[in-house]
Structures are given as C-alpha cells and as structure tokens.
C-alpha cells in the first residue's frame, strides 16, 4: 500500500488551504476531489466577499479559488481530480475510486474537507422537474453559463437565498418573488437590498404550499404563516414560475467522519450532526482532522482559516513544524478566526463551539471517572 504524509479529501477552500499550509513545512501532500474541476463551491461564487482585507473581503470567490490553486501548485501539492473517496478505515486508510479502479492509500494524517449538501423541504409537487437547489441554480448559471429557468421563486432569504437571487438577476432571469417563513431577512443586508432595489418583492412570514404543473413546474402557491408556522387560509398567492429554488440551509457532509468512528455531536448552530473537534480541527480519532463545512456550516473565509489550522496541526503531529514557530503561527490563525467570527453572524458559531467544548469535556470526564 502506498503511504503519504497527508491525504486531504476535498479540494474546496478548506482542503486547498490545509494542503498549502502543510506542504510549506515539507509534508508530501495529496488532495483528492471527486469533481472534474477543483475549487469546491468557490468557483460559482462571483460576488464580493465581506469582512476585512485580511479575510479577502471585496475579492470574488472564483478569483480566490484560482489563487489557491496556483499557490497549491507552487507548494508542490498533488491535486488528483475525478477521485471519489468512498471509505476511511482505521481513520487513516483512504479508499478512493479513480475511473474503474479502487485504490487504498495509507496516510500519516487525513483532513476531511468534503463540504456540505443542500437541504430541501418537502411540499406537494416538490419532486417536479424545475424544483432545484439554489446552489444548483448557481452552478448552472455561473459555472456552465446556462440559465436554470426564466421565472424563478426563491424559497429562503438567508445568505445563499439573497446571493443566488442576485446572481440569477445578473444571469438575466426574472425573480418573481423571495419568500421566507421567518419574519426577518437572514442574509447580508447589502445583498438583500440589491435584490429589493430591482423591484423583486419579499414575502416574509410566508411558506410555499405547493408547486403546480404538468410534468414540470408551471406555477407555485405561497401563503402567510401564523406564529406556529401554520399557513393562514385566505392568504394564498400564486406565481407563474418555471423554477423554484430552495435555499433552506446546508447540512455538513459527515459520511466519512461517521465511518471513521469520530465522536459526533448534534449542534443545530453548525447545521446538525458534526464531528466533535478541537479548535485545530482534530477529531476524536488520532491523526484525523476535519475542516470547512464538513465540520460545521460557516463560510468560505473561515473554511480557509480552519483548513490552515488543520494543515498546521497535521504537520506538527508528524514533527515537521518547528514547535516554537508553529506555536506562534497557530496563535496567529486562531486570532484571525476569532476576528472573523467577531461580528453578529459569528455569534451562532461561537455559541455552538462552546457547546461542543462542553460536550467534549463531559465525555473526557466520563472516561476518567
């Protein structure tokens, strides 16, 4: 069996950042990604990022993706595409499918950076062709240059909802309405305002009742909800749309961390079930780290820092990084992450992290008792 210093699963912002950081210390690093293109979700993010310059604010996602790829190349990272990881045994034996072959490779350390998948909400008609994830709409338009439809209804006004709605307008689609069961817009105000300025109506406190159509979406009916989130009769509205985009949250991809036997915790603030991790992404399985959305839903900027932390930890574990220099580098990254999570959007993450550390302490106490 081949042996590598570090195997990274997923070439999104988290995985590439982990690879770059670790390779700088001289580790032999390979990154596997099942896609034909590296970069994860970054390449469909054509809007400018928020925050400070340190966190690459005002840069567009796809440019950051290109930079990461170039940096990885210079650092000597091997990126293998079309390589789907289907198994993780003893935490550190990676089973990967390439074409029609299955290979097994042993690593001294592994970083899981497999991202997340989109949630859905069931309603009558939700399986009709034309009901798609908001991420799917973004992929079709921005990556492949094909409009997913002409007249859209966006379900969900969180970050993904407002960002993708604006991108669909940029792609020349008509957004007939934005709805959200909550009475507040969850997404960044700037993006929501840009959508609202184009005249798209927002229906807050509304839910989708059903999608109608013969073999494909032809219209959608929404209604207001009461305090118990039940539809209020008589408030129904029907829109002629050919596409319904669902932007109702993301769920961390945990198949591999569960398979490896990581201790898991359920933290709604991070998107549901996630592996319990220390701040550097170390899971309960020695040598196995998690970074980015696979360890809890956040955003691309923090995925990059969490990736770097995991890469650094993997290098330290194997004695590659001089301990004093690594100590201060770790400190620097932690501080950067704290600054990023400092705003109101970081509150949810900070609270969830606190719960995670409490859960870990409790477990440690049980084990020593």
């Amino acid at each position: 069996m081949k042996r590598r210093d570090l195997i990274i699963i997923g070439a999104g912002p988290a995985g590439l950042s982990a690879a770059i950081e670790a390779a700088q210390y001289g580790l032999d690093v390979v990154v596997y990604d099942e896609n034909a293109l590296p970069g994860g979700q970054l390449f469909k993010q054509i809007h400018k990022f928020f925050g400070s310059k340190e966190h690459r604010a005002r840069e567009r996602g796809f440019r950051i993706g290109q930079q990461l790829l170039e940096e990885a190349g210079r650092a000597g990272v091997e990126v293998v595409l079309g390589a789907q990881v289907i198994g993780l045994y003893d935490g550190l034996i990676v089973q990967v499918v390439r074409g029609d072959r299955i290979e097994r490779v042993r690593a001294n350390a592994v970083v899981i950076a497999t991202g997340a998948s989109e949630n859905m909400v069931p309603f009558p008609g939700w399986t009709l062709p034309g009901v798609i994830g908001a991420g799917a709409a973004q992929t079709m338009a921005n990556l492949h240059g094909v409009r997913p439809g002409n007249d859209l209804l966006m379900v969900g006004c969180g970050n993904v909802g407002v960002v993708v709605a604006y991108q669909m307008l940029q792609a020349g689609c008509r957004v007939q309405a934005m709805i959200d069961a909550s009475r507040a817009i969850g997404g960044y105000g700037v993006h929501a305002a840009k959508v609202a300025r184009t005249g798209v109506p927002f229906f807050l406190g509304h839910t989708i009742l059903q999608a109608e159509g013969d073999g494909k979406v032809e219209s959608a009916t929404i209604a207001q909800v009461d305090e118990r989130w039940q539809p209020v009769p008589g408030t129904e509205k029907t829109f002629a749309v050919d596409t319904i985009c669902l932007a109702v949250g993301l769920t961390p991809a945990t198949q591999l961390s569960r398979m490896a036997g990581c201790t898991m915790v359920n933290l709604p603030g991070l998107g549901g079930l996630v592996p319990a991790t220390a701040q550097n992404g170390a899971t309960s399985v020695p040598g196995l780290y998690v970074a980015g959305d696979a360890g809890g839903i956040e955003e691309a900027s923090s995925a990059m820092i969490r990736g770097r932390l995991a890469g650094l930890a993997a290098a330290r574990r194997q004695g590659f990084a001089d301990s004093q220099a690594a100590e201060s580098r770790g400190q620097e990254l932690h501080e950067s992450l704290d600054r990023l999570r400092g705003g109101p959007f970081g509150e949810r993450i900070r609270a969830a992290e606190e719960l995670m550390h409490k859960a870990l302490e409790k477990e440690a106490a049980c084990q020593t008792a």
Partner: protein
Amino acid sequence: MNRLAEHPVLGTYERGRRVTFTFDGEPMEGFEGEPIAAALRAAGVLTHRYTAKNKEPRGVFCAIGRCTDCVMVVNGKPNVRTCVEPLCEGMAIRTQHGLGNGAVAEKEERP
C-alpha cells in the same frame, strides 16, 4: 435559448468545441466537456427520468452529483449522473425508465 452569451461579472464563457449528440434518438447540439445536464437544459429538456413505481418525472435537483435525481442512460449505460458527466461527441443519451436497465428499455422502444 437558455445559454448566457455574456455575463456582467464573468464576461464571456470559455466553452469547448461544438458537438452533436442524440437525446432519445433526436439529434442535438452542445459543447464538449460541459455536463450533459447543462446541454440538455440549454436544449429545453427538463425531464431526465421516470421513477420505477409511480412513473413520475424527475430532473436536476442538486447539479453537483449528490442527489442522483438526474440519472439517465448514456451510451447504453444506465444510472449516469448527467449533472457531472461531461458531454462528448456522438453520445447517445436516453430518458431512464425506472431503475434503468438501459438495454431492456432500448429494446422495448425499437419498432
């Protein structure tokens, strides 16, 4: 036509060379290397398959290879995720019926 000629942020799209393929026997055009699903969407095709029991239509849902809603019979091979499978010259793409025993489906369709 659902293809974007130009994008306000991205400019013009880099596409592969123009190729022809067939959808249920009907000739269509697309660009080499783009996902089959993108070429079909541009050509106005939304239904990729029909479910086994209730024969309900299904199309693209996630577009990143996660949900398997978009599977079709490609060159006789069933259950191909068309949202991630690149388009090639001369591909024979067919609507998948049920669990996708492509060979049987094609035989049944022949006069």
